[in-house]
């Protein structure tokens, strides 16, 4: 009964489609509508046109500072995390019997990373009188608590992000295994050193994977919420130094009841992310090499 097959396929797809429509597309459209309204969660939304967006750009200092905090976080944490991931992947790529163990060990933090528990542990470690402060004190450096210091609090969250390099690392490792060993043999015969080999073979051959990780990790970093929420106790403090865009969005929506305003912020973030991703893909032509293609 060949004519039955597509229908059955749809039938089996239906739970996913229903989920996507009800839990993703529906709420997204609702939030698009709400972004043009004054909505406090309890009463009927009131249409105010572009007012929310206008306020965002003209009279909200905290919005501006949250954008700076987020940009700083993305620009610092993403390259560091990718560098750590690539570095460890290179080390692990050498044939070794313990490779599986190491791979799991380095991957573990990624699995735990988004969890509340790890963020809580992180907070305790970097808190006033925590392990980190005591260690620094022991060698004569008085730092004070890191999470209570506006100059260091963001760094704590960056370190947490970098520590979770496992997911991109596993992807890098898979990419490294795809590079034909003949290329390395040839370069060895030609007398190329480690750096030369890395620059001329590893990086170009790995560039599609680098692009993939870069896009994914950038988006993740922009959307990061849990660590900042937990480590700053929901405040984004001290002194708004960890006020991530998403955290401010949450505060606006759920503690100040300005859901329309929060929706406008969410859509703005979506647009910016889409724009950034488009830019990365455009520039990718300049540095990403797909084997089997003519080099541009």
């Amino acid at each position, binding site marked *: 009964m060949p004519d039955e097959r597509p229908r059955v396929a749809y039938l089996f797809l239906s739970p996913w489609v229903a989920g996507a429509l009800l839990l993703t597309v529906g709420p997204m459209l609702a939030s698009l509508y709400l972004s043009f309204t004054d909505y*406090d969660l309890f009463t009927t939304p009131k249409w105010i046109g572009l007012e929310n967006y206008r306020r965002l750009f003209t009279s909200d*200092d905290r919005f501006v500072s949250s954008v700076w905090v987020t940009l700083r976080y993305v620009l610092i944490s993403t390259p560091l995390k990718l560098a750590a991931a690539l570095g460890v992947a290179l080390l692990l790529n050498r044939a070794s019997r313990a490779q599986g163990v190491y791979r799991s060990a380095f991957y573990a933090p990624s699995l735990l990373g988004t969890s509340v528990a790890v963020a809580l542990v992180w907070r305790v470690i970097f808190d006033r009188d925590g392990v980190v402060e005591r260690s620094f004190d022991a060698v004569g450096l008085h730092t004070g*608590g890191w999470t209570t210091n*506006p100059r260091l609090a963001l760094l704590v969250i960056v370190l947490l992000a970098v520590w979770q390099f496992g997911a991109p690392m596993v992807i890098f490792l898979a990419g490294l295994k795809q590079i034909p060993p003949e290329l390395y043999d040839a370069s060895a015969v030609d007398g190329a050193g480690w750096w030369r080999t890395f620059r001329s073979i590893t990086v170009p051959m790995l560039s599609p994977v680098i692009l993939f990780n870069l896009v994914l990790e950038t988006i993740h970093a922009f959307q990061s919420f849990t660590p900042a929420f937990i480590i700053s106790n929901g405040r984004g403090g*001290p002194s*708004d130094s960890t006020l991530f865009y998403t955290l401010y969005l949450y505060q606006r929506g759920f503690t100040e009841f300005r859901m329309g305003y929060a929706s406008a912020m969410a859509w703005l973030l979506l647009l910016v992310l889409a724009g950034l991703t488009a830019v990365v893909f455009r520039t990718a032509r300049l540095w990403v090499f797909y084997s089997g293609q003519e080099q541009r």
Partner: protein
Amino acid sequence: MRPRISWNAVRLAIVTLTTASLILGGAAACGEEDGTVNLRFTWWGNADRAKLTEQVIDRFEQQHPGITVEGTYAEFTAYFQKLTTEVGGGGAADILQMDYRYVREYADRNALAEFTGNAAVDTSKLSDALLAGGTINGKLFALPLGQNTQGFTYDPTVWASAGLTAPALGWTWNDLVAATQRISDITSRRPYGVVDFGPIEDWFEVWLRQRAKSLYTEAGQLGYTADDVTAWWELTTRLRTSQAATEADLTVKLDGSQANDPMAKKLAASGFGYDSGMTPQTFEIFGREIALAPFPSDSDALGQYAKPSMQVCVFKRSKHPKEAAQFIDFFLNDPEAAKILALSRGMPVNSDNRAAVGQTLTGPPKVAYDYEQLVGPKLTDAPPPPPKGAGAVKTAFQRVYDDVLFDRATPREAAERLIKEAQQAIAE
């Protein structure tokens, strides 16, 4: 070879599974068919308060076999973060402990049920001033769970060993500055003289009232100016820079929980608080005896008032407003319940219960009770419930002060920013 699958069998399986899940889902939704009413009650507080509350719940359940009450609790900040989400999503508990500052916010947004008709509660033994705190536009939306007042908690041993006379009615802000400075100096800041009180709007309110001002006017506008906030933050900044008050590292973490209270961790010798903080285990948790004194004042006005320490409301979408009201009635008026709770949520609001409970107290609650007797005649009526947006202003007050703590803004600059933000928050 193509596997032979009977599509009819697949269809049958799917229909069966779907139906089964619908039936199961339906059964789960109708869990109360057997006639018992399940109420959920949520509050903020520590484990100590939770233990007593559970005892009262048990007693209520014994006397009302058809009703079960499930209690959950959290610390203050976490509690309100969670509550807003739950109320917004429609899944909040039936019975909500409420703060005076937020009651109008929730009532105006149509999230609370009125205590009326068969959901009424006996309020004949409650004072009108306390009931007024839950009356919005003539309708009763919140009942007081207890009454408390602001105060100055201090460690009398440290005070005495520094050669200081105990703070008492009539002491001034200069006395406070001198005393806390002396303690910090003598003990080399172990403990600090006082917990930095700059970030807490509640203590600023008392200070304002001593100057015949208020947080909000009758019309719901801001009752103070940038000058007032500047003066307040200049005072606390002076204390912090002279190290009489706690360092920024400690102050920045204040969130109403004991875990982050320098007083409770013996890192400070005094601090402002509510007398309802004196629970039976306070001395054990704090590791020493704590005494209560009135606020310092430079005028005749003490500024403190009899406040509904906590209120209780019924969620608008509760399916059992009648039973919820029954439970609240029990919580407020049952003499045995009052004895169990004692002062864990402030002075009992039922006047008969208050007198009865007063006879039986020992330890920290006794300290609070005696303190209430002392300052009672000086207390004034509570201000009307603050306007919508007041919650955001309280949060902003603490957040903006962060900038003062870390020398990122002068008290004047920060105060002006606060006023701007506050006006936005209550206007929107």
